[in-house]
């Protein structure tokens, strides 16, 4: 059995740029060392907020579906999309509800607030403690490697295209040094009026 956070593997990273944010994930789903699927994306979109989930695969799916339900209910009540900051508090309180029997996930949120136009990213531990960051957030089995690549490649005020390249290189090079992550990647670059999703081919080993 071992650690539920590292049974299936996976990595997510989010970065802030100049009036833009990027969020990326790998595509592997494994059982310990055996790779079961190389098409298991870990980023889910909820209107203006993008949610990345790493950890136990079953909880990744459960949480993504739970938030789909919650965000749809929010949209019906409020007659508007959820803002990233609001989403962060929703995720936090949902996780803390399970304080003594947590979902084994490490969520990451990225998005641009449509009202203020401000980029927003944040991360969480599995019981909902929010980690607000001005630069980048990492999570998953390659988090050590991602800390290294992000800390040395990222710089403030990157334009969308440069932010994409930085995010993609940070992710790709990090997951190549983690046996439990990789097998391709998705990277979203989010600006106020455009979202670009790119599918990256990575090493298949």
């Amino acid at each position, binding site marked *: 059995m071992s650690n539920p956070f590292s049974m299936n593997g996976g990595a997510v990273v989010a970065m802030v740029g100049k009036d833009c944010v990027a969020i990326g994930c790998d595509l592997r789903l494994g059982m310990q060392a055996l790779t079961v699927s190389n098409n298991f994306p870990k980023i889910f979109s909820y209107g203006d907020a993008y949610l990345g989930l790493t950890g136990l695969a079953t909880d990744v799916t459960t949480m993504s579906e739970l938030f789909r339900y919650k965000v749809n209910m929010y949209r019906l009540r409020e007659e508007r999309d959820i803002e990233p900051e609001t989403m962060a508090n929703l995720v936090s309180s949902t996780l803390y509800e399970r304080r003594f029997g947590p979902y084994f996930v490490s969520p990451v949120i990225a998005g641009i607030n449509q009202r203020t136009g401000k980029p927003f990213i944040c991360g969480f531990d599995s019981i909902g403690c929010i980690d607000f960051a001005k630069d980048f957030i990492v999570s998953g089995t390659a988090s050590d490697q991602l800390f*290294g690549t992000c800390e*040395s*490649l990222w710089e403030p005020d990157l334009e969308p295209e440069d932010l994409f390249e930085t995010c993609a290189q940070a992710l790709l090079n*990090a997951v*190549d*040094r983690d046996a439990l992550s990789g097998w391709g990647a998705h990277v979203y670059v989010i600006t106020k009026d455009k979202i670009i999703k790119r599918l990256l081919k990575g090493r298949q080993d």
Partner: protein
Amino acid sequence: MSFLATPSYPQQNVPGGEPTQRHGFNPYADNGGSIIGIAGDDFLIMAGDTRHTAGYNINSRTERKVYRLGEESSLVLATVGFGADAKWLADTMKRAVDVCFPRLSMMKDFKFQHNLKDMTVSAAAQFLFTILYGNRFFPKYAYCILGGLDKNGKARLFSYDPVGSYSKEGERRAAAGAASSLIVPFLDNQVEFKNQYVPGTQGMTERPVEYLPLEKVEMLVKDAFTSATERHIEVGDGLQMVIVSAQHGVREEIIELKRD
């Protein structure tokens, strides 16, 4: 390093019997820190931070991890892990390579036996393997990176695990220690150009690997350590760099890192 963790069994007394006393001694410690080595064409940089830790304590902010193996020699050894073993390895290598203590030396120093000739890098590399593997069943708990210039002035670099495994071909860059998992993917990207492709080839042609100039390598080393210092608590205080160049000889430099 879970196999090095101190066992914490509760004291168990047999009811009605003599109180039992269990004695445990852990011969190893982890003193943190990180080292890296990058080889250029005719130069190499060996670097390490100067923090020495025990758990959350900082023992020293000025403890060096990179050792020159002799005054005239181009050989440089960087070691990290258990500080005492690391130092023992450095001393043993120094004694073998140099003419420091000909009288005290147990294994007759190399220069003395070989008509004052310097040991080559590949010979030193094989010698370090012998030392490490000689302690196979009570290992010296230290990760080593050995570098130097060969007869033609080309840079050579070797890296070892605690029991001596190394590649005789050598490598272009190596990292070890507490923050190696942070530094290695960065070096993959910036030294070996991993995941980089030639523009306009639709990601079909990989960017060819080439030797980097000294200034660029120096910048990469500083970037690697400032980044590791930001995110790893066992790395910081100072950055010791030893630059071995075929043209300009050996130069040592220590710059400040964050002390928090």
